[in-house]
């Protein structure tokens, strides 16, 4: 009789508690979400976007830039070419394999830069404009759930895989349970120090001929510097063009030609 009571109590506990514990994600489920996030943003073909960058710093006038971002996801290539203001026109970044180059037309030279490069002196990094590679570069672990405004989110912690060079080795992602969109992201140094907090409040989807499906992109990105607390960056993706780009675009010669 006593054993029966114990079994019944255990059954009741399991049944009632289950909904509370149900939201825990295991490894394969998290990996699937990361792959989904990456895949949504991948075009497969070429990608061109017009972006606006605005940087706020303490005791300084806001700096603003407009740039064209070119991506060829199949070849892992990226180029950022600044168009405004006039003094910045023609300067740009070119990523080929693991090399990030910066070109400055006023000195006519190429310089090698690292993953930690602050794009145009803002709080944004190369990866913010590039194809999302979360599943490829990081290993996730589940940290719990959180409420973000009116959104219910999962919180995942991502640690960089061995041998991968990224700007931030540890990330925390707030992923919307309903849509699987990343809404918030915290980025940490290896020491565990919080370096930057990012918000993605607007997601947009456009149809891609080359992918034969939708390509998602964050229309607005806000980065808050956690070291220099007064610094923040706003990135707006103003328009996206998914038509094929010129074949020889991702070369130093092409970027140089834009400032001649």
């Amino acid at each position, binding site marked *: 009789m006593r054993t029966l009571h114990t079994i019944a109590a255990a059954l009741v506990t399991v049944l009632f508690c289950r909904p509370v514990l149900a939201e825990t994600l295991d490894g394969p489920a998290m990996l699937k979400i990361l792959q989904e996030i990456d895949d949504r943003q991948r075009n497969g073909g070429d990608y061109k976007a017009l972006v*606006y960058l*605005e*940087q706020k*710093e303490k*005791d*300084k*006038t*806001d*700096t*603003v830039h407009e740039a*064209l971002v070119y991506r060829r996801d199949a070849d892992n290539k990226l180029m950022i070419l600044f168009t*405004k203001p*006039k*003094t*910045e*026109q023609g300067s740009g970044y070119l990523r*080929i*394999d*693991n090399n990030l180059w910066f070109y*400055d*037309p*006023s*000195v*006519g*030279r*190429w*310089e*090698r830069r690292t993953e930690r490069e602050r794009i145009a*002196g803002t709080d944004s990094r190369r990866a913010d404009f590039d194809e999302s590679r979360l599943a490829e570069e990081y290993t996730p672990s589940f940290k719990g759930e959180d409420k*973000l*405004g*009116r*959104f219910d989110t999962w919180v995942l912690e991502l640690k960089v895989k061995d041998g991968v060079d990224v700007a931030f080795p540890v990330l925390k992602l707030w992923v*919307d349970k309903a*849509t699987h*969109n990343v*809404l*918030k992201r915290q980025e940490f140094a290896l020491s565990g120090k919080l370096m930057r907090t990012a*918000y*993605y*409040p*607007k*997601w*947009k*989807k*456009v149809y891609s001929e080359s992918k034969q499906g939708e390509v998602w992109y964050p*229309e*607005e990105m*806000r980065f808050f510097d956690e070291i220099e*607390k007064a610094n923040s960056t706003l990135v*707006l993706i*103003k*328009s*996206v*063009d998914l*038509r094929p780009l010129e074949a020889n675009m991702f*070369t*130093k*010669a092409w970027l140089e030609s834009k*400032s001649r």
Partner: protein
Amino acid sequence: MVTKLRVLLQIAWRNLFASWLNVIIGLVILGGTFLVVVGGSALDSLDRSMSRSIIGSVSGDLQVYAASSKDKLSLFGQMGGGDADLTPIPSFARVKEVLMKVPNVRAVVPMGAANAIITSGNTVDVMLARLRDAQKRMQAGDASAKAEVDSLKAHVHHIVQVLKEDRKNADKLVDESAKDPRAEEAIERVSKDEFWAEFDQDPFGSLEYLENRIAPLLSDGQMAFLRYFGTDLDAFAQAFDRLQIVDGQMVPQGHRGMLLPKFFYEESFKLKHARRLDLIKEEIEENHATIAKNADLQRMVRENMTQPREILFQLDPLKTKEAAARLQKSLKTNETDLEKLLVQLFDTNDQNFQEHYRIFYSDLAPLLELYRLRIGDSIPIRTYSRSGYAHSANVKVWGTFNFKGLEKSPLAGVAAPMDLITFRELYGYMSPERRTELERIKQAAGAQDISREDAEAALFGGSGEDAAGTEGATTAIDEAALFDSGGAARAEETTFTQADIDNGIFINAAVMLKDPGALSQTIQDIQAASDANGLGLKVATWQEAAGIIGQFVQYLRYALYVIAIIIFLVAMLILSNAVLMATLQRVREIGTMRAIGAQRGFVRMMIAIETLALGTAFGGTGLALGAGLVALVGHSGIPAVSRQLYFFFGGPRWFPEVSVTNMVIAYGIVLVVSILSTLYPAMIATRVSPVVAMASDE
């Protein structure tokens, strides 16, 4: 009165060494006086020698800058490493015109300082950048570039061979899994003759392959922090006449460019092996150090022996052969492998150092590029201005310089003088047109400001449609419409006139005086002239302008004062107690004196004069000893044993001088302390009743 004084002096003299207590008190006074004289004289001399260094190398007698500036002027940079936030002054011509009318002003030199980081890629990056330039020139029809292209191609090919050999040796130490197959594949491809035979078919494609696949395999890229200041270079050279050109030449009038401090040039751009050999030689010859006993020198020898790669990469196949042959002969060995020969050359000790140093410079150095940056080359300088934007310029290095007497000081030449026109471009003055352009871009974007604190509520508290994802449409982006000009122009070849220098912004200006002795009056005159003409200037002495370095002596002086005050306070307490004890010991004597008619005033006077005599005797001895020591040291001088001391000493030796002011101050303090310390004992002594005193045993 005179008789009374004579009696009091006799008593004081008799009691001077009567008690061991007096000797101890005297020694404390002696020590304090000695410290004030020696310390005060040393600090005065240091102040003078440092002022020579700072005035003669960077500040001039006075500095002027905008009174509306947020920070104070700090010529050597601020504590945190950044620069002071100073308001630019629109026209130098107007300021110069007004200040030159101040009677004691000899010259006004415009200035403005900033910091930049100079990065250079690794050896292959540098080589490939040159190859890219030469290839472009060749394609543009410059026939002479062909030889350079061929030589650079052969050189890069040779480096890849060395790299391949290195990795083959490393393979013995690492397992297969640690290898990067992409790197192995790239080295294999580029080390073959076919790659180079096909190079000309697609030179820029081949270059990109080398830049992206081969160059990242090396990690010897370098970075240097450069502090520079824009100025009217001719006016600067005239006003700061200790400046001397060491290599190259002065920037020609009206031309853009800069001079690098010799010390900075050697430290930042010289081949590391050569620099280490120079430093070892200097330590041995100037400080009589030995490799056997000096751990620092041993470290440098070790580093030279274990890092021969930098030299091997510099040599093409022909030079490699030549270098091996020369070293074989000079080192008298049959070894043919250059790497082993280099290790043998750099394996130095106290016996062979001078000979190996000579071999390096006579046999090897002519085959090497001793400096990563050659005089006549341009440095790309990129700096973030106060406007938040980065500005860059190629700045030609015309030569190196130092200041006479301060040749070895890293501080006297901490900044590189640059022409004012290039400085202004790098400074990025926010003109009204630029401000309007930025405002237009910002308005077109229509961005909404959101603070960090409200971000989550503002971004995710609404309907949530945007965050969930909305349908959009692709738009054709018209690139041609976005590029409305030909990009930034490169201006390094353009020249300028004196009017261009004078009619533009500057940040601060050095003012040289005809009579530096009339400093205070001139400060007032300049301030008055500035106020009368609405220039809005603030005047700073060289000490104020030099920031923490200028005030270094002042801080030392405060420390000395604190120590001296503590010593004299202790002395005063001991003295007061001791005089009190001595007085109590003499109750009977004082009582007797009082009984035979001595008044209270006489007793008070007796104690005061006794203490003054003590102070005079020991204080005087302290003065004499202190002055003697300063004079002795001042005669032979103290050598500057470290490079930093050159600046503080104003040259290779420091000659302190006796300061009469300090002697007077020290003696004055002794007298005051003596008088103060007798007040309480004298009061006790005057209360002694003759009857009681004579009735007591003591």
